[in-house]
């Protein structure tokens, strides 16, 4: 076959096809880059929103169970809150003997029903239900105690499984109506375990701000990053809905979380820049355990 008879592309065809290929490739590349940015932004935003949801879920769970009137709010400010966070709930099957000393008393708790993230351990703080006069609710309340020795397995008097605690009770007279008398803490009375925790803003070594949990184990960044020292705001309301600065009067707690994405994302548009997206959430929690009368 003659060389001139071979079929092929002209230079013009080649140039046109290359230009077209370049245009299409560029368009596809831009779409891909744009899509990647959108995808990254969406992922970051999802993380951000989930962060906020987690914060609200944690705060709701912790604060609903507070009894502000009886000292569960130990310190409060717009950007931190120190509370007795409830951790366990159990029931006495063999009560402590009252009427004499309040240190080194023993009591046995049922193994079931028992609720919490772990069983009791030495050093745990307790609130023990004080029955007092069974014919009245006026003296009902909770008495502070602390476990002072490692709990041991000890059956209940009805031979079911139990855990024996050695405790020091807070001095009497306790809250109004609570006196150190035999039979004032009864079989079947509930016992709550709690730890004192602080929720507040915290700046980590990477300069980012977080919502942190502070307890006896130290400081743990929990939620974040937030937008800064104003990324968490607590507002305290009394029963009338008015803002209050008195811990014992708190009936509702307003929570506002302002968080940002963990990584910067493209702000969009031709002149877009890499920025941290910000979102916020506000809710209000009603304290369920304030005294009823």
């Amino acid at each position: 076959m003659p060389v001139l008879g071979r079929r092929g592309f002209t230079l013009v065809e080649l140039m046109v096809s290359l230009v077209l290929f370049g245009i299409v490739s560029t368009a596809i590349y831009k779409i891909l880059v744009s899509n990647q940015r959108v995808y990254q932004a969406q992922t970051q935003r999802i993380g951000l929103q989930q962060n906020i949801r987690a914060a609200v879920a944690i705060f709701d769970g912790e604060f609903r169970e507070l009894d502000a009137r009886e000292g569960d709010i130990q310190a409060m400010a717009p950007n931190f809150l120190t509370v007795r966070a409830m951790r366990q709930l159990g029931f006495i099957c063999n009560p402590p003997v009252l009427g004499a000393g309040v240190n080194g008393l023993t009591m046995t708790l049922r193994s079931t029903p028992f609720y919490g993230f772990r069983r009791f351990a030495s050093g745990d703080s307790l609130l023990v239900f004080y029955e007092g006069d069974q014919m009245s609710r006026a003296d009902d309340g909770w008495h502070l105690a602390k476990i002072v020795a490692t709990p041991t397995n000890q059956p209940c008097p009805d031979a079911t499984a139990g855990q024996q605690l050695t405790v020091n009770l807070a001095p009497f007279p306790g809250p109004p109506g609570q006196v150190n008398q035999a039979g004032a803490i009864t079989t079947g009375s509930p016992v709550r375990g709690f730890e004192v925790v602080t929720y507040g803003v915290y700046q980590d070594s990477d300069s980012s701000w977080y919502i942190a949990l502070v307890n006896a184990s130290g400081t743990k960044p929990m939620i974040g990053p937030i937008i800064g020292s104003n990324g968490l705001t607590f507002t305290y309301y009394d029963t009338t809905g008015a803002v209050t600065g008195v811990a014992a009067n708190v009936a509702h707690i307003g929570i506002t979380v302002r968080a940002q994405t963990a990584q910067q994302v493209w702000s969009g548009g031709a002149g877009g820049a890499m920025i941290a997206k910000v979102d916020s959430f506000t809710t209000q929690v009603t304290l369920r355990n304030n005294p009823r009368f």
Partner: protein
Amino acid sequence: MQRERGMALGLALLVIVLVGVLVVGALFSGTQEQRLADNSRRLEASFGVAEAGSVEQLRTWTPATRNSKGFYPSDSGTVNATTTPGGTGFYSGTVYKMNGNIYLVSITGSDKNSAAASGAGGGARQQLGLLTKILPITFTAKGALITGGSAKIQQNVTINGNDQAPAGWSGCPPPDSAVPGVHADSGETIVVNSPARILGNPSVVTDNLVQDSTFTKFGPYTDSSLAAMAAVTLPAGSYGPQPAVTSGSCDHRVLTNWGDGLNPAGPCGAYFPLVHVTGDLKINTGSGVQGQGILVVDGKFEVRGPFSYFGIVIASNGTKFSGNNQGDPKFLGTILSGSKSSITTKSDTLLGTTNAQVGYSSCAILKAMQGAAITTPLRSRGWSQLFTLPQP
């Protein structure tokens, strides 16, 4: 056939694939976000269901069913799977009676989709607990016999305001200090003919603590609300209550079964019904005729012969007790004998013969309350979010 050449088809396929990848990527992100948000929504909805369910248990509390249960671990009450009134989900749970006064209402709630196992993802559930305590009946005046009218006590009657526990009863509170044997409205006449005796501190007192409301208001309860809570309601008439046992269990369906205070370890020993008689009540006395709990009589209450009762008696139009040659009536707890219309109404409060006894018993009163009273959350810290211990 003309030979086709070019890249149009390939390019088109490439573009379609790329667009598909982009769409799938966008959908994946959107779906993830939707699932996360839905999980949160389900969690919140389940919380609402559990809280509604736990409160519903208190609203519909039936003392005859709940209070007659044995203490944990011997007994507990089941809350069957129930749909919330708004249809937002389902809840179920257990009511534990931890002692005579305190209950734990443990309710697990799931939102509608989670309970039906529909939709993507796992099911959400929340477990809440309400610590409740019986709502005690309280009295403005104390005494073995509290009367709004005059009283006449004669022959070998003993009215004793010193606290005493019924024979064989366990779990009684520490003894109360002595109360008046007879506590009457000021100005009323209390006639005691020897050898009748009245004991107490003081033995007889008349003051204005006894008023109309003494017989109609009992702290958080009224006579009407007590009547509405009754496990047994009977018309005016004559009855001879005795324990009823069927197949070894206390038969609550028998309306003349008012418990078994004489045999506290028996099948009906823990049954303390609130009995409401809507008119005058006469007891057909006899051996073994007895009752315990709370007895509300919308009229006059008459007993002639052997009859034992442990708990609280509220008779709106006076009482008349006497013995016969078979035996005598015996009451432990407290008796309120008054008039709904006026405390100036004179009614024979006690006409006793032989060895009739009326004694104050804080134990009988407490047990009657524990058997018949409704419950409400503890004064404080009665609400709890429950977390099951992690398995070791």
